[in-house]
């Protein structure tokens, strides 16, 4: 069991919403990962759909690069769709 791969688990709580990451677990293969995820992460009616992905298939950004990757977006408010003034008639769009 030391060589069981790690899987990241994503659960969709209701139809129509997106799958959210809820945690990870070890399993021998993908089918067992689904069963384990069902047993561990849907005990309290948390979801209607399970995705499991082997952790080594996920590429993540390097925290050291956070400044370079994310800071420039902080002062570019013109990219947000907040400058349109809606006419009163459309206030409930």
């Amino acid at each position: 069991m030391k060589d069981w791969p790690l899987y990241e688990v994503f659960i969709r709580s209701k139809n129509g919403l997106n799958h959210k990451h809820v945690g990870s677990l070890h399993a021998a293969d993908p089918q067992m990962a689904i069963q384990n995820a069902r047993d561990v992460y849907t005990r309290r009616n948390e979801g209607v759909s399970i995705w499991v992905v082997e952790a080594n298939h996920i590429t993540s950004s390097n925290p050291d690069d956070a400044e370079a990757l994310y800071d420039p977006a902080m002062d570019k408010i013109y990219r947000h769709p907040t400058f349109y003034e809606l006419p009163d008639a459309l206030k409930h769009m």
Partner: protein
Amino acid sequence: MLADNSMILGQRLGEWCGHGPILEQDIALTNIALDIIGEARNYYAYLAEIEGKKEDDYPMLRKERAFRNVLLVETPNGNWGDTMMRQFMFDCWHYFHLEAMTKSNDERLASIAKKSIKEASYHLSFSSEWVIRLGNGTPESHEKMRNAVEHLLPYFEEFFMAADFEVYSQQKGISPDLHMVKNKAMAKFSDVLDEATLAYPQNVFAKKGGKSGIHSEHLGFILTEMQYLQRAYPGVTW
């Protein structure tokens, strides 16, 4: 009998709590235990209504000879493979028996079956997958499973040997023809054994007695643990 099967097996599975080979399996087994203890509670509650007793009187205050569970559910947990093989045999009977019970003439039993069959369907798929993986795994796991099949198969037949009360309830349309249940259960059982590359032992002597209240010595120990609290502190509640 239906309640006792689930209750005693639930108690055995509870013994694994904290001892599973890996966290996810520990949780899986205790989930299964909760499912079947829940099913047992439904039957005990129904009985309590009919006989004017309390639901807990049945699991907690009866003695060994009053229990009607089959011998299989008393067998020791053994190693993970033994537990999976025992679970798989139970599930083969449980799933197809419940399927037939959904059409029972007794509405209450039919509705209990309709709810429990969803859980049993998962249990059957869970235990089948494990039997296949362990049987068709490493030489060591295959050997352990081979031992498991050999020492547990004598207990499988008892599910399908109708006790007097089962003959009676079948005539009333309350419970199914056990031959039909056996055919489906055996078909599933041999399919999975084949896929697990496990041989089906021949000339197996069928052990029985549980349904008449004649149990193995294991039941005494199981009941001692299960009933200790109620017997030491009668009438105690949370």
